[in-house]
């Protein structure tokens, strides 16, 4: 972990300094790492650009195309989104930013079981990673948002989170001369609008792409980059005994479906009804969106409630027996792939070894040393623990 983060730290500092020295606010006209400029927009170039997938579903095996990405935003929109993302001006009290719960140093999560709300209260779900979030069709653990734009209105305007109002958010940006200028740069001098805020944040989040892990090298023909235990772990992962790959399907490592798997809540907490609370459908009780496993090494604790502190505990859940953690008196329509695979301790260790090959932060964005509001940007330090 330390070995991997140290170069990253040096690199981020190296990138952040020139910006700090630059007094004038000017958005980048260069697409971020991994993106090519075409017809004025930024488009991803990756290992997977040349591959197809059945029905463009983005699910398959090693050499399968990714799901469609939200792309084509301009370099300026992405860059503006980057500044907004770290700027606590977006919260009503001026002390929370998107990056409060989606911290770059923690795989764009917060390292907590439940995120911390506006008044320090513990929220009941774990902040998901934003790596590869632009490939997702539905967002939130309960899949209630169908776009990034829809999703972000949740935390921005929730009383428990950033607690802003649309009118107040718009006004605070309009009142800031730096932002007034930057929005003009990103949106052709059109009057500043909330729609532009959502577009810019969606643009930045969609640029957080992680497809250059050691696993990706293996998948594209470089078999020597994985160790023997890692390959064995991959084979357990995709075996029809462990069945991990049936839902965490490559190359996105999620099939983007809802699954009822019956993980435990924190001690003493009531069962989280998940998707049922949105749809009212009892068969979806305890159902959650299958999360990606990319950069999973960085995003502990795990599951919707953050109940599992380590990857080892997490993989062990799946061999604990179908429904073993479902509270007495609850009936859940458990997913058919939750069964009793009877994995050995050694196989669980191998699974963890494989999961760590999915780590790749090479397209970490430049973390701003200052933001246009003049407030202190949130969570722009890289931690080394």
């Amino acid at each position, binding site marked *: 972990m330390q070995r991997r983060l140290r170069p990253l730290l040096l690199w981020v500092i190296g990138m952040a300094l020139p910006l700090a020295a630059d007094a004038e606010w000017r958005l980048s006209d260069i697409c971020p790492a991994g993106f090519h400029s075409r017809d004025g927009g930024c488009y991803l170039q990756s290992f997977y650009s040349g591959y197809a997938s059945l029905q463009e579903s983005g699910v398959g095996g090693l*050499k399968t195309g990714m799901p469609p990405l939200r792309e084509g935003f301009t370099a300026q929109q992405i860059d503006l989104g980057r500044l907004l993302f770290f700027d606590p001006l977006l919260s009503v009290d001026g002390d929370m930013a998107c990056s409060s719960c989606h911290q770059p140093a923690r795989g764009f999560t917060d390292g907590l079981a439940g995120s911390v709300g506006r008044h320090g209260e513990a929220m009941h779900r774990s902040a998901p990673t934003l790596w590869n979030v632009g490939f997702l069709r539905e967002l939130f653990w309960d899949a209630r948002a169908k776009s990034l734009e829809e999703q972000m209105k949740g935390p921005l305007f929730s009383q428990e989170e950033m607690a802003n109002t649309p009118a107040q958010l718009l006004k605070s940006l309009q009142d800031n001369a730096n932002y007034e200028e930057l929005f003009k740069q990103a949106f052709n001098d059109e009057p500043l609008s909330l729609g532009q805020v959502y577009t810019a944040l969606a643009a930045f989040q969609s640029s957080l792409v992680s497809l250059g892990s050691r696993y990706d090298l293996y998948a594209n023909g470089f078999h020597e980059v994985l160790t023997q235990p890692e390959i064995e772990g991959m084979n357990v992962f995709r075996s029809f005994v462990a069945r991990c790959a049936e839902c965490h399907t490559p190359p996105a490592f999620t099939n983007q479906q809802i699954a009822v798997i019956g993980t435990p809540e924190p001690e003493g907490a009531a069962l989280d009804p998940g998707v049922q609370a949105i749809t009212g459908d009892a068969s979806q009780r305890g159902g959650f969106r299958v999360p990606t496993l990319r950069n999973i090494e960085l995003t502990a604790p795990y599951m919707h409630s953050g109940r599992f502190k380590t990857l080892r505990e997490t993989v062990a859940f799946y061999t604990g027996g*179908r429904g073993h953690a479902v509270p007495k008196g609850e009936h859940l329509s458990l997913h058919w792939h939750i069964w009793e695979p009877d994995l050995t301790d050694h196989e669980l260790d191998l699974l963890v070894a494989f999961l760590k090959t999915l780590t790749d932060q090479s397209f970490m964005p430049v973390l701003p040393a200052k933001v246009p509001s003049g407030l202190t940007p949130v969570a722009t330090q890289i931690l080394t623990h």
Partner: protein
Amino acid sequence: MTKIIPLGLLWLSLLVAAPSLMAAEISVKDGESIQGAVNKAETGDVILVYPGTYKESVYVDKDGITIRGVVQDGEWPVMEGEGKRNDAILYSGNDFTVEWLTITHYKGNAIMGQAGNNFVIRYNRVIDTGVYGIFPQFGKNGLIEYNVLSGIEDAAIYVGMCDNVDVRHNEVFDNVAGIEIENTRHALVENNYAHDNTAGLLVFITPGLPIKTTFDVILRNNFVVNNNTANFGAPGSIVSKVPAGIGIVVMAADDVVVEGNIVSGNKTAGIVVTDLAFITDISSDPESEPNPDRMVFLDNLMFDNGADPVADVKALMLTQFSRSGPDILANLGSAQEPDNCIINRERYTSFGVKKWSECERKDTADITTMRIPGGAPNEVVTTENRTKLLYQGICAGCHAYNMRMIGPPTLTVQALYRNDPQGIADYIAAPHKVRTDYPAMPPQGHLSPDLRREVAEFMLNVTK
């Protein structure tokens, strides 16, 4: 016509011959490792597995590999899972063939594909493996033929989320499900012998999967006989919910042709057509269309079905004053609607087909295969082109040939490092900031020195 055929053959022979120009044969003898041979193999190679017992799981992540058992005097190569190994053969490569193996006692599947187009799985014997016998998933264009499978607690042959697959000349018996076509389009299931399973042939949509449809399936000229084995599926599995004694089940699939089958001795019903309500206690999926649409039932030979139906079917049949199950059961709901059709319906005992229309089509003789002529196109990864992939997958994300991106143009790098690939290889392991107008590049230290050198040489030779 006489001109067309030789031309076609010529093309075919070219297609077949092209990879074999460099193809090698790698022999594996008893006591040696099949995986060891796969690791050595390159695209187009054939691995010959001689009689013996092979206690291993084999994975194939390369394109164009054939694993071929050598059967001598009735002695087969046997892959033995001893009840503790997961899957016998796992493949993700395209153009994969596996044939002439006996596979037994694995915990998971005998032969399992995850993606991998143009697969061929034939002449294999699969006995008492855990979950599925043959299970290609996410594959396009495949052939499964002349396999014999028994003793499997889910589907013996399970085609899941695939397109363009032929399943023919297989024998499946003593399994829970014989042959299952699930969330798959364009499948021909022909000339198979499905007997003594819980259910013989199944054409399903399973909800909650990322690929949502099943349509354009032909079940033709199969023997579907005496499928009355008590269900021994794992608790919670989809097939564990299928009642025993059914020849053919079509659930939620569309455009299914049933023609020329001999369906007899199945004690609950010969053929059941149903919507998704058939499977209970499963999390619902609003994106899965639950209704079976446009069945086409042509001439089939059916008799002696429904002798001892399960309670639900018995209750249905009592409404038409019969105690035995039918040849054809269209379940309550959309399965009974007139978008479905049937010919010579008077020959069969039936339930729920009164409103079905008369089919215009009388046979499907014009359709000989569901596979794609010439195969599905693939991006083949070989030891020759993988460096190009690496360059495109990683380097080209930030370096265009002659245009500024977040990294300097490739031309500029070429000018700086002319004749010095090692210089690039060293730099990218731990990049430091060189130019004030560009950010430092992300480190590539996870690439081995050889790989960095390889891709550096490639970069110096890029010409556009």
